[in-house]
């Protein structure tokens, strides 16, 4: 029953604050990594209050309240926040169960794709948390 290994999908980009980013056309889907959800433990609420707003890289997108602690979610890139995952309003535990899938948190339309290239690769992120 030892701790499961941390899942770090190869096709995503990452931040040192433990967000992941997936490119879908001109939109980037953002969530927190498997490592982050394990560290936070049972997640209770997610609050995103910047939907429709333009954010800069590193701005706070929202707050993640876990049973044990609270953490901020930071914008991996600048852009317009298009939507937040409505499912999480009632089922925040989806982040624990499926951090890269149903547990996605926000979608952003980036204003500067150079910032995408500056994000960590899976390999770089793996080294960061090693």
């Amino acid at each position: 029953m030892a701790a499961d290994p941390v899942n770090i999908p190869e096709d995503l980009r990452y931040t040192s604050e433990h967000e992941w980013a997936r490119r879908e056309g001109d939109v980037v889907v953002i969530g927190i990594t498997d490592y982050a959800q394990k560290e936070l433990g049972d997640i209770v609420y997610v609050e995103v209050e910047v939907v429709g707003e333009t954010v800069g890289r590193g701005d706070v997108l929202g707050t993640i309240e876990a049973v044990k602690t609270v953490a901020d979610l930071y914008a991996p890139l600048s852009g317009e926040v298009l939507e937040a995952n409505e499912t999480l309003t009632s089922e925040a535990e989806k982040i624990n169960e499926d951090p890269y899938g149903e547990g996605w948190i926000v979608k952003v339309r980036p204003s500067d794709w150079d910032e995408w290239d500056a994000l960590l690769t899976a390999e770089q992120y793996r080294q960061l948390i090693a």
Partner: protein
Amino acid sequence: MERHTPLFARHQALGARMVDFAGFAMPVQYEGIRKEHLAVRQAAGLFDVSHMGEFIVEGRGAKAFLNYVLANDIGRIKPYQAQYSYIPNPEGGVKDDLIVYQFDAQRFMLVVNAANVTKDWDWLTQHIQDFDVHLTDISEDTALLALQGPRAAKVLQPLTPLDLGKIAFYHFAVGDVAGIPNVIVAATGYTGAGGFELYVNASDAERLWDAVMETGEVTPAGLGARELLRLEMGYLLYGNDMDEHTLALEAGLGWVTRFNKDFIGKTALLKAKSEGLKRRLRGMLVEDKGIPRHGYPVVDETGQNIGRVTSGGHSPILQKGIALGYLPSNFSSKRVFVQIRNKFVQVKVVKPPFITPEQASQKTS
């Protein structure tokens, strides 16, 4: 240096996440706080709380000594009965809260908080001279397993010839459990879910843990779940909800303070009582979203700071944020808010427990 309980290897084998608590490496969670919390409310959970301290008080002057250093009246309990009490300081503050177990008129066990073992020991031995009593610290040799939840008795009964149904709340028996002699089986706990606390020699701790786990009906539970369970019941946590600087009566410990006898701190507490308490520990229930946490400010509708959260968290039973905190006795504000980062979240001031007995121990047949 970090200390280990006798069950450290078991926690590691289970993949527990360990944290430092009062100098001990303790399991904060195994598979998840929510799951462990629910197991205790609905079935049975097993905690290792061997970090707690145990002192034996024995001698002809045991009762007189305990009545002098503790606030509750030891005369109110009989052999094989337990009592919640606390050690007041001369100013009426709280040195520690504890449970007293009475074996006979001249032999008692005090179970104290891990963080306070040295402090309590020093204090108690300092006041022992005038009494015919001997004090022994058995903390090192004693392990404590808490089997808590509505199914605890059903799980434990096959392991012991003791009739568990006969052990009333805050009573205990001593006997064989899982073939281990002289286990103290006490109907006490810190969860409100019912069940037992099992005091056993440190050398037998793994055997007892294994026997309980091998029933296959028990979920190992960590300090994270324990914290939420006690908070839902409004049980105090020493160092957060009360300490040397909070008057015991402000902390709501009046029910275990007996003025019919002399004890350290009595004068200060009587004085505070007659002058009226300036503040009281209250329960706060978040009506909307938000989780109040330790240290968050409490404000009234004018934005005036009126207190702070001493303990807070998210109740899995209520699906709401709950908190304890000191508020002025005479606060007139109809609306009270907890400042959660940059937001003011309205709370309802309530008298704990936050949940009903039926919610605390959910008997499913």
